């Protein structure tokens, strides 16, 4: 885990999301009603920290990412940047857009194949009028490419001439062009080969150290998220099941879903094969009709009748937060067993 930025809790967050809801309707999926992608998420992002979000497909993590950069307007709730709401009058103000950038999962489809690398990285400079003339712009693009570890003399080439890892670096250079305070990364390394993933993960860590940019790092790979994040949020069916410092969430998970997720993750250690694991039954339920009460109760081995009726709220459990009626007991039992 990267070293923690100085006392995070006391400062004003750069990004705050409160009560975010987003549903989609229309298309084939709407036969049973709207897809409730995100259903009540609150979180804060502080300057210079990395907040990791993990969850399975369909848990709403990409929708959350899009709302955090203002690409989607929440149905309810709002996102504020340094206290200023995203959707003031109509669109997101240009100066907020400039400060909150995004890196996408697939570097090939998120880069225009007919634009040169120079034009791709220069586009945000042009849109936000950050370079006085063409020469300054060229220089700045060169600087940005150097920053992400690419040679500036390749700026007149096209995306297809680069490897997967290099393309992701181009996407990162584009995100850095406007000197953002926040970069939201949606699965930034999952399309990359495993021998290349580590390069990009290290690049994020280094950029944060040198530039102090705050990151929201969304991924399904638990080990990668733990590696880069100071704090981690675990999402299940549109809500946060658990949120807290990475060491706490991974070391002493309080929500049964987090425990199951950690237990199910394949470990590259053949010697650990016989270990006892929590096996969940079935697949995650459809976000079109999430179960009543606790969303996880249909697959939870701790579920009691209360869980089917009453939706648990995110409450403090020790140093972190969990949304489970039995969280406290779960956390203390885990501590007793593992003595971490």
């Amino acid at each position: 885990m990267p070293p923690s930025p100085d006392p995070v809790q006391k400062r004003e967050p750069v990004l705050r999301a409160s009560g975010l809801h987003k549903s989609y309707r229309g298309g084939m999926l709407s036969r049973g009603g709207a897809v409730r992608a995100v259903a009540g998420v609150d979180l804060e992002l502080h300057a210079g920290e990395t907040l990791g979000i993990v969850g399975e497909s369909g848990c709403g993590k990409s929708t959350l990412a899009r709302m955090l950069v203002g690409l989607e307007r929440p149905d309810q709730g709002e996102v504020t940047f340094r206290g200023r709401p995203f959707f003031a009058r109509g669109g997101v103000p240009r100066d907020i857009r400039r400060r909150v950038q995004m890196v996408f999962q697939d570097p090939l489809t998120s880069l225009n194949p007919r634009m040169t690398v120079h034009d791709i990285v220069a586009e945000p400079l042009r849109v936000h009028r950050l370079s006085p003339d063409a020469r300054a712009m060229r220089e700045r693009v060169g600087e940005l490419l150097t920053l992400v570890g690419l040679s500036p003399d390749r700026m007149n080439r096209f995306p297809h001439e680069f490897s997967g890892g290099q393309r992701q670096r181009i996407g990162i250079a584009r995100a850095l062009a406007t000197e953002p305070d926040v970069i939201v990364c949606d699965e930034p390394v999952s399309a990359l080969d495993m021998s290349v993933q580590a390069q990009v993960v290290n690049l994020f860590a280094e950029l944060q150290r040198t530039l102090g940019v705050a990151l929201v790092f969304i991924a399904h790979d638990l080990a990668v998220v733990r590696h880069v994040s100071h704090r981690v949020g675990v999402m299940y069916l549109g809500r946060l099941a658990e949120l807290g410092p990475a060491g706490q969430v991974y070391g002493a998970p309080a929500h049964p879903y987090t425990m199951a997720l950690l237990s199910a993750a394949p470990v590259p250690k053949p010697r650990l094969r016989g270990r006892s694991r929590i096996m969940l039954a079935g697949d995650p339920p459809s976000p079109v009709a999430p179960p009543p009460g606790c969303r996880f109760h249909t697959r939870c081995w701790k579920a009691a009748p209360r869980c089917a009726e009453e939706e648990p709220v995110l409450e403090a459990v020790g140093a972190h937060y969990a949304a489970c009626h039995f969280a406290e007991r779960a956390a203390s039992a885990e501590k007793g067993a593992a003595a971490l």
Partner: protein
Amino acid sequence: MSEPPVLEIRDLHVTFTAHGREIPAVRGVDLTIERGQTLALLGESGSGKSVTAKAIMGLLDRPGTRVRSAAARLGGRDLLAMSEEERRALRGSAMTLVFQDALSALNPVLSIGDQIGELFRVHLGVSRRQARARSIEMLTLVGIPAAAKRVDDYPHQFSGGMRQRILVAMAVALEPDLIIADEPTTALDVTVQAQILELIDRLRRDLGTAVLLITHDLGVAAEVSDRVAVMYAGRIVESGEAGELYDLPAHPYTAALLAAIPDLDAPASELRAIPGAPPSPAQVPPGCSFAPRCDRASEVCRTTRPPLIPLATGSGRYAACHHSEEMLDAALA
């Protein structure tokens, strides 16, 4: 041990021809799998692992593709001496393939019962009614609840994990000697992936089938395989018993991969990244393919390709590296 291995492949080459250029995707691969054993073929995209699987299945017989091997035997039967018809009869019965993407591997306009039943009707010639009964049996075996009711449902009515179970059911239906699973869990969520891996492992134990697991995930390979073969740029660079290979890698590529993935239990501040990217199959460097990215590479690595040779240590370990001995000595010292 007089029983022949379930699968024996010697010196497999697959070359694609595109736009007048030859692209060697697989360049001399040997594979041996014993009965009841799981071999993981581990590699990154473009390493040739899926092409190897398709070549074994005999699915690459088309223009522009050249497949040749010195030997190819499935449970004692010589695949090279067979006619296309005979090989076709083996596919689906003696050797089967589980695909990565269950939604595109299943026919969307046929019910699940029809698709599983087809196997029994084509290969065993049983009646429609019997095929249906056997299909329900298979669905129950792979843990589909209310199988008798769901047998008439269509693929889109099942969740991703359930669809993958259906593919596994089809793969084991005729009790094959060999199941080739090509990234069977890559499209699945972590919690569902664990279920499918356990299912494949349980069926292997119960039915004594051999499994060739194609994966890019070091974790998945570690969870279920007895032996692991690591592929890089169309060749196997290292193979051995899973525990030994992970503990004491004898090829720098394997060692670098293990160091490049974050450890869930012991987070370090920096990952040891491997510089560069895997070579394109069309332009593989001379000598050792990994040399340009290798921190141990010396002059000999750039000029002479190291052969895959047995190592003195461990049980049945092979590595293709000029520096294997030093690596193992350094690790043990």
